[in-house]
């Protein structure tokens, strides 16, 4: 796909620079002449949106770091100082705090897009793996950022998450002590998390460059999952993709601004406005919404070590996906049965997210008490998360590999541009 360059230096300076550092050529080939499949829909605009999110986090983050103090005694007050005294500090902080949530909304959509259209399949495995690495780095960055205001949720969230590593036999305790830099979560922990929170977004930026490089080698997938075969199948990135991406970004920014200006604390927890107190744990401790499905998986398993392993394995599934899927057809458009299981998977993730935010023993249907199954009533969030967890793993380990072998798929169009007669939707929406 990357083909050869069509860049023509126009001015003398451009010619001079082009033979020394062809940076304008690189930009031109990447963002202007780059051929994109002509049938990309709005689910393909989230890559651009994610780049925007990373930019917003880095700019607002660097500004926050100018006013923030990474010290257990001063962190909480310095965030309050940002909120009350620093000019527009409230705006910058609300952009950063809500920006993290927006970033995760976008990344989840981006990932499920890949899942639906089979974008992880050959030859895009490395592209997919790089994406999974970015996601892991984002989770680490978001977690460490949430520690910085040093409120009650920051503190006890850190205690719980760092203690996860204590589940490993023999080395567990040494790892947690090493992470903490002491006998408990304390000032050394806060300082190192700030250092890493500052660093990781730039590591993410580096991996994003690799991700885009890999993308430009193999080319974009598209809603049909059929590779472009001729010029008729593609359009140049500019103006087609730039304008579509720009429009999608604008809509996304409206959502972002709605949170920042009208409900800046809706996605946070009131408890984090209470300064950290190691002696009292908040009655209901939950992580940020974007970790809730994994938190539910952790709690679904009654054994400490197995729970931790299940949680890591649930992320590992995404890494293994390119080698688990046996189907030759990329897009779920032509796989009606797989489509059904996909939507159940989406539902299972949402259910897990919901369960992760509730107390395990609370009833799902209020007021209904049945009997005790194992350790609790089947009408409880812990049992609901067990069902969803079972489906989550079955989807990757059984459904995806088996379905690819046994499913009867619909006919796939020859090319992107050819009238897609096989498409279930009216043919005019294609082309």
């Amino acid at each position: 796909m990357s083909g050869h360059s069509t860049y023509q230096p126009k001015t003398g300076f451009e010619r001079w620079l082009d033979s020394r550092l062809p940076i304008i050529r690189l930009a031109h080939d990447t963002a202007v002449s780059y051929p994109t499949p002509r049938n990309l829909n709005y689910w393909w605009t989230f890559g651009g949106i994610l780049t925007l999110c990373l930019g917003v986090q880095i700019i607002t983050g660097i500004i926050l770091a100018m006013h923030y103090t990474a010290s257990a005694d001063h962190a909480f007050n310095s965030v309050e100082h940002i909120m009350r005294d620093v000019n527009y500090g409230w705006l910058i902080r609300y952009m950063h705090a809500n920006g993290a949530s927006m970033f995760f909304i976008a990344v989840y959509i981006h990932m499920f897009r890949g899942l639906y259209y089979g974008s992880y399949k050959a030859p895009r495995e490395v592209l997919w793996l790089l994406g999974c690495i970015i996601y892991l780095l984002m989770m680490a960055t978001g977690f460490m950022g949430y520690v910085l205001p040093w409120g009650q949720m920051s503190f006890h969230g850190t205690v719980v998450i760092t203690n996860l590593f204590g589940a490993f036999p023999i080395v567990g305790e040494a790892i947690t002590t090493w992470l903490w830099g002491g006998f408990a979560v304390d000032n050394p922990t806060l300082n190192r998390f700030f250092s890493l929170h500052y660093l990781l977004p730039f590591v993410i930026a580096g991996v994003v460059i690799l991700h885009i490089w890999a993308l430009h080698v193999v080319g974009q997938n598209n809603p049909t999952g059929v590779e472009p075969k001729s010029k008729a199948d593609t359009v140049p990135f500019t103006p087609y993709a730039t304008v579509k991406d720009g429009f999608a970004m604008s809509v996304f920014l409206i959502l972002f601004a709605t949170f920042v200006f009208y409900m800046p604390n809706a996605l946070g927890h009131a408890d984090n406005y209470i300064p950290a107190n190691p002696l009292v744990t908040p009655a209901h401790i939950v992580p940020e919404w974007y970790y809730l499905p994994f938190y539910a998986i952790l709690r679904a398993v009654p054994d400490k070590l197995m729970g931790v392993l299940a949680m890591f394995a649930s992320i590992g599934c995404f890494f293994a996906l390119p080698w688990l899927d046996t189907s030759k057809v990329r897009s779920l458009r032509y796989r009606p049965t797989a489509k059904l299981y996909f939507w159940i998977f989406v539902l299972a993730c949402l259910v897990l997210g919901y369960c992760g935010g509730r107390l395990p023993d609370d009833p799902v249907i209020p007021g209904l008490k049945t009997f005790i199954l194992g350790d609790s009533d089947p009408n409880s969030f812990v049992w609901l998360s067990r069902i969803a967890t079972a489906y989550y793993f079955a989807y990757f380990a059984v459904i995806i590999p088996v379905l690819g072998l046994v499913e009867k798929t619909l006919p796939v169009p020859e090319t992107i541009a050819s009238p897609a007669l096989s498409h279930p939707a009216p043919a005019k929406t294609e082309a």
Partner: protein
Amino acid sequence: MSNLAVGATTDPGHSSDDPSRRDFIHIAAIAAAAGGAAAVVWPFIDQMNPAGDTLALASVEFDLGKVMQGQQVTIKWRGKPLFIRNRTPAEIAKAVQDDNASMKDPAKDADRTKEGKQQWMILIGNCTHLGCVPTFGGGEYGGWFCPCHGSVYDTSGRIRKGPAPLNLALPEYAFLTDTRVKIG
């Protein structure tokens, strides 16, 4: 030249035992570099372990006279909560009575207190599941309840129900006098 066996050419600077000498130099060089790299990496890893002054903040003394029967005081020790509980005779009786009940981490109540000072229950107040601070009075065993994932401890701090694998940990402590303890 047909009488010259291929490979039999002798080059004075390239004798037949040379390859192994060369291998040796390669292995030695790589080993030295790897050893050097490991020696440099270790300080970069170890710097994250507790610093000298953190390790030095090890012990505290506490005046038990402040704690009435049936009361619990929580103090901070090594950054962690420490429960100092003056148990009622009923709590002690309950703990002793359950000594032989089936438990995940079996222990006798007498082994979790100092001899003759059975009323003093001194515990590290972090749930052994993922470290939250349990509250006293919750759960069905009359002891501590952890709000995070529902672990239940009895009046001896032993794990009775929930995901926590171990009893609440006991710090090292000694009675200096009848009313003073030194912890750590």
